[in-house]
């Protein structure tokens, strides 16, 4: 396992963690995996590309624009896709179906404007890589690592220490009782979707930089789903640990057995992991009582 493979694994893991954070936030509060997150990422990456990147501004404005458009798309998504289902108290599987349909809707709108040819973000750095011993890491990966670490700390602070955080935790335990306690659940859910969209925008932009910007970029959301499950559904720190683990594991398997067997091996490992520890690394296993 050479240093280069490890660094590749960590940088893939960093992007997966941004996706997984967005995932875990929504799962935490609504107990369902939001599959429209992938399309939110792609849409905000495209918006950032057209509004900012193609005009040659730097990386920071592009990232900001992508994150903000992600937040806005998250809010719109909450209103169109999930608000009424929430009010009707339908089964979680309804959220799942509406999140996939919402994803198809965003992807349709994006392909409408951009067709399906792909775009490439301009190179934000003249020297794109940094040498560590004999291994090479691109600057984007380092920034991704930094941002996801900082983001996690800020998020953990907000969730644990601030009043918004307490309200989010209250709503995630029980929406209706929280409402009875005077918490505006709908507003809190909107805030959570905005934060999740914010991270989705960031992840989408970095995916666009690391890989080319195509309308099917959103299908990587599946990796975020796997990472947030391994980490323990709903727990943020678990999601990031799960993402790192997934990234490094994939890089290791790829370097050992090549692409075909790597997918099968990671599926087998995930299966064993779930059977041994169903609640994930940091999840909690609540015994159902009659």
């Amino acid at each position, binding site marked *: 396992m050479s240093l280069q493979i490890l660094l590749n694994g960590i940088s893939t893991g960093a992007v997966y963690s941004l996706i997984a954070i967005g995932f875990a936030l929504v799962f935490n509060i609504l*107990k*369902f*995996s939001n*599959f429209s997150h992938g399309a939110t990422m792609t849409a905000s990456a495209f918006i950032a590309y057209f509004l900012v990147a193609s005009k040659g501004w730097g990386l920071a404005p592009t990232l900001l624009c992508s994150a903000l458009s992600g937040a806005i798309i998250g809010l719109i998504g909450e209103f*169109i*896709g999930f608000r*009424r*289902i929430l009010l*009707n108290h*339908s*089964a*979680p*599987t*309804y959220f*799942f*179906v*509406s999140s*996939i*349909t*919402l994803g*198809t*809707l965003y*992807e*349709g*709108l994006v*392909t*409408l404007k951009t067709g399906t040819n792909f775009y490439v973000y301009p190179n934000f750095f003249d020297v794109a890589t940094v040498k560590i011993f004999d291994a090479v890491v691109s600057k984007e990966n380092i920034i991704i690592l930094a941002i996801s670490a900082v983001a996690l700390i800020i998020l953990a602070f907000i969730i644990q220490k601030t009043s918004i955080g307490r309200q989010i935790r209250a709503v995630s335990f029980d929406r209706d009782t929280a409402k009875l306690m005077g918490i505006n659940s709908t507003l809190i859910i909107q805030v959570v979707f905005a934060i999740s969209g914010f991270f989705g925008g960031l992840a989408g932009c970095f995916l666009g930089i690391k890989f080319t910007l195509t309308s099917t970029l959103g299908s990587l959301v*599946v990796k975020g*789903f*796997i990472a947030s*499950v391994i980490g323990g*559904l709903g727990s943020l720190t678990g999601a990031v640990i799960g993402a790192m683990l997934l990234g490094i594991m994939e890089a290791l398997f790829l370097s050992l057995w090549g*692409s*075909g*067997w790597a*997918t*099968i091996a*990671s*599926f*087998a490992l*995930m*299966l064993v992991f*779930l*059977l041994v520890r*169903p609640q994930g690394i940091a999840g909690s296993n609540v015994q*159902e009582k*009659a």
Partner: protein
Amino acid sequence: MKLFLYVLTQVCITLVSVCGIYILTGLTGMFSLGSAAFMAIGAYVSGLLVLKAGLNMYAAFAAAIIFSVGIGYVIGFPIVRLRRDYISLVTLGFGESIAQLILLLSQFTGGAFGLIGVPRRVNVWFTLISAVIVIAITAFFKTSKFGRQCIAVKSDELAAQAMGINASRVKMTAFLMSCALTSFAGCLYAFYVGYVGPTDFGWKKSADWVIMVFFGGVNSLTGSIFGGAFLTFLPQYMQALNKYRYIVYAVLVLIILNFKPNGVFGEWELSPRNLKRLFSPKKNRREDV
């Protein structure tokens, strides 16, 4: 007319797998993102058995279905033991692995080129009869003790266990039924189109089937069949507005999900009793089931 027959065949094949998904997700509430992989297994195994081993078509179908149920049994073990939200993840991983296996065994499956030259012995009437038989089987399944137990497990697994229902076995039966039906759909597809491509069986296809069940009515077989037929007809007949096809499709489903949450048909089931009840005079009709 020929186009209508072609689309009708596609609808029948989709309905066979939608019935499988109805039993798995509609009745038992288990959410699979890998059912399309069983369609792939059915298509490839039956195609190969006829092409390489010279078996007759019906024997190949039977063998392919039994093989898929066998694999379903193996992958079913973790599924029936895990929490509900993990099922979609395990089946997703399973589907991706099957897609990789198809590429890795390229000397048999033709790898990226797909399985070429499967004899086209299935016509529209064959698929129509198969769809009708499968719908009947699903209807009998729903009204049998197995159907009731599935709904009981979906509604409250712990209470079901308390009533002596072996929840794991019920979930396994439902899963194996869905494997059998989706692989049968795979066989029909292979012998109608004459070609099986490796990339047509991703998780999006399994998600489409689930959307069809929800669109029509998650608790009603009639609704799921309507959902399956309508959402298969729609894209084929919307060739004109091809760019907007996916947008219209998504908007339509979102409207139904938001404003008529349990689907176009809700709980309503096409049964003689309900029909009589629907068209009987207003005064003696109590709120129907």
